[in-house]
């Protein structure tokens, strides 16, 4: 017993603070709906659920690993060239993810086309590296990366759910809207397939979120 009291108490893996790193990005720190980052990919890949899911997982992989790598290197990276180091790490991860997709999920890789490569430019990743990984230990950095990627993925999948359901009448490629509704005169909404509707859907999500959580509404 006396040994333990001498050492500084080691933080648990999932302490309250660490759990917050995971849960905050899902709610009041959501990278898309609150920080309004990474909007381009939301517009581009959310026509259907399948590519959105793959995109969300890819971003999670890139973010989790690059956050850990930068966190491990954080004391050796010279301050003046830290951006280029971060870019190199992210780019290597993205190339890795791209190769894996091409090898095992070729169709989806074709569908996502350049947007896998463009994960490099996703501001959320760079933002988390700058804001968190550069000044925190590897484990919290990993949680932060995964948490933010989950927040990003949640919005991505919500948008894709509505766009695929209303735009194509399917979910994950399976027809959901029954045929007799089409026979009654229902027509798929072609507007949902166009990018503007993704923006409007994100806007509605932001509206609902701020309505439920008034502290997010800024006074300006």
């Amino acid at each position, binding site marked *: 017993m006396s040994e333990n009291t001498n050492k500084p108490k080691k933080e648990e893996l999932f302490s309250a603070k660490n759990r917050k790193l995971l849960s905050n990005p899902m709610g009041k720190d959501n990278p898309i709906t609150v920080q309004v980052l990474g909007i381009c990919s939301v517009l581009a890949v959310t026509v259907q659920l399948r590519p959105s899911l793959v995109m969300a997982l890819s971003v999670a992989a890139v973010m989790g690993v690059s956050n850990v790598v930068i966190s491990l290197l954080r004391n050796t990276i010279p301050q003046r060239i830290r951006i280029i180091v971060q870019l190199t790490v992210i780019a290597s991860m993205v190339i890795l993810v791209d190769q894996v997709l091409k090898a095992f999920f070729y169709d989806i890789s074709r569908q996502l086309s350049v947007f896998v490569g463009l994960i490099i430019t996703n501001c959320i990743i760079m933002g988390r590296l700058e804001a968190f990984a550069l000044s925190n230990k590897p484990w919290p950095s990993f949680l932060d990366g995964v948490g933010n990627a989950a927040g990003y993925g949640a919005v991505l999948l919500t948008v894709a759910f509505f766009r695929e359901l209303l735009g194509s009448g399917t979910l994950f490629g399976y027809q959901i809207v029954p045929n007799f509704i089409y026979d009654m005169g229902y027509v798929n*909404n072609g507007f949902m397939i166009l990018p503007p509707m993704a923006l409007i859907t994100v806007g509605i999500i932001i509206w609902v979120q701020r309505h439920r959580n008034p502290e997010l509404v800024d006074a300006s």
Partner: protein
Amino acid sequence: MKALIEFVEKKIQPNFEKGGKLHKFHRSFEAFQTFLYVKGDVTRKGSHIRDAIDMKRTMFHVVIALVPALLFGMWNVGLQHYRAIGLEVTFFDQFLFGLIKVLPLVVVSYVVGLAIEFIFAEIRNHEVNEGFLVSGMLIPLIIPVTTPLWMVALATIFAVIIGKEVFGGTGMNILNPALLARAFLFFAYPAYLSGEVWIETSLREGQQLVDGFSGATPLAMLAANETEQLPSIIEMFLGTIPGSVGETSTLAILIGAVILVATGVGSFRIMASVVLGGLFMGGILNIFAVNEFMATPAYYHLVIGGFAFGAVFMATDPVTASQTPTGKYIYGALIGVVAVLIRVVNPAYPEGMMLAILLMNVFAPLIDHYVVEANIKRRLKRLKKAPVKV
């Protein structure tokens, strides 16, 4: 009449006042009450004279101005239908057919739109805005009569919520709600608004379409560079051509324009500059014509499609148009130019008027900003030049 007003104030109103059973719905009550007559409120201080022309009355002028286009549109729907199936019927029958087809569109648009207005007024606890009185009439007039009713309802919901309520309700919207409804339909259900299925051709037993019937609107014909079947300019001016319900008759729209300008509700500056802008761009395209559409005389653009309707009823919307007099000229002229440009140069979008007005709606505040800035600069210059008087 007096007895009725007294009845409302004595018997019904107390229910909605503070402490009354139905106080929760007092906004809705006030909306209906002021629809019939202005309440007897008196200002406590400041100016004591109140003009009777509030927003509700202003909006009503526009609805009256729309009546000629609406009535003509109803008759034209019948006329086009019976032409398509090759039947000679009386004027009354044609009108009746159109009435039966158009009335549901109007009812759906009003019921859905006003329901949303009332819901938002109750939730947000503000007065019910009357802006939808006009939008609700405009929406059925700018869509083809063949549009299914549920699409009209959906487009109205989209336009009122995303176009208006999100920005804070009537007077705060950036885009014209009626046009937004049409744009929504145009992008969501292109098959229903492509300009080829705009005549009601549901057939009863024993009826069939006449030989060589195409049903394409003049605009669609021109966009496809097929000018052989194009109606004469007189026909297009009078409006006996296929098209959206209220947009075909330039004559009926002109009557509406006169009413709007005479009552001071619509801006003459905008209407005139839209027409001039359209003619100007049409003229330029004529000079560099490489196909039949580009070679079409510029004044054709004024009578085909929704150009006239847009210029008179859409571009002049006081909320979304420019506010400054100079800005109105710039705003109007650019609408005309862009509308003709989209029509002729981009074959994917035959009706450029809708897109042109929506685009300029977005730019209207910017135009106003620069007009005001220019004015400030000019006056500063004058101040510097002027000899200092002591």
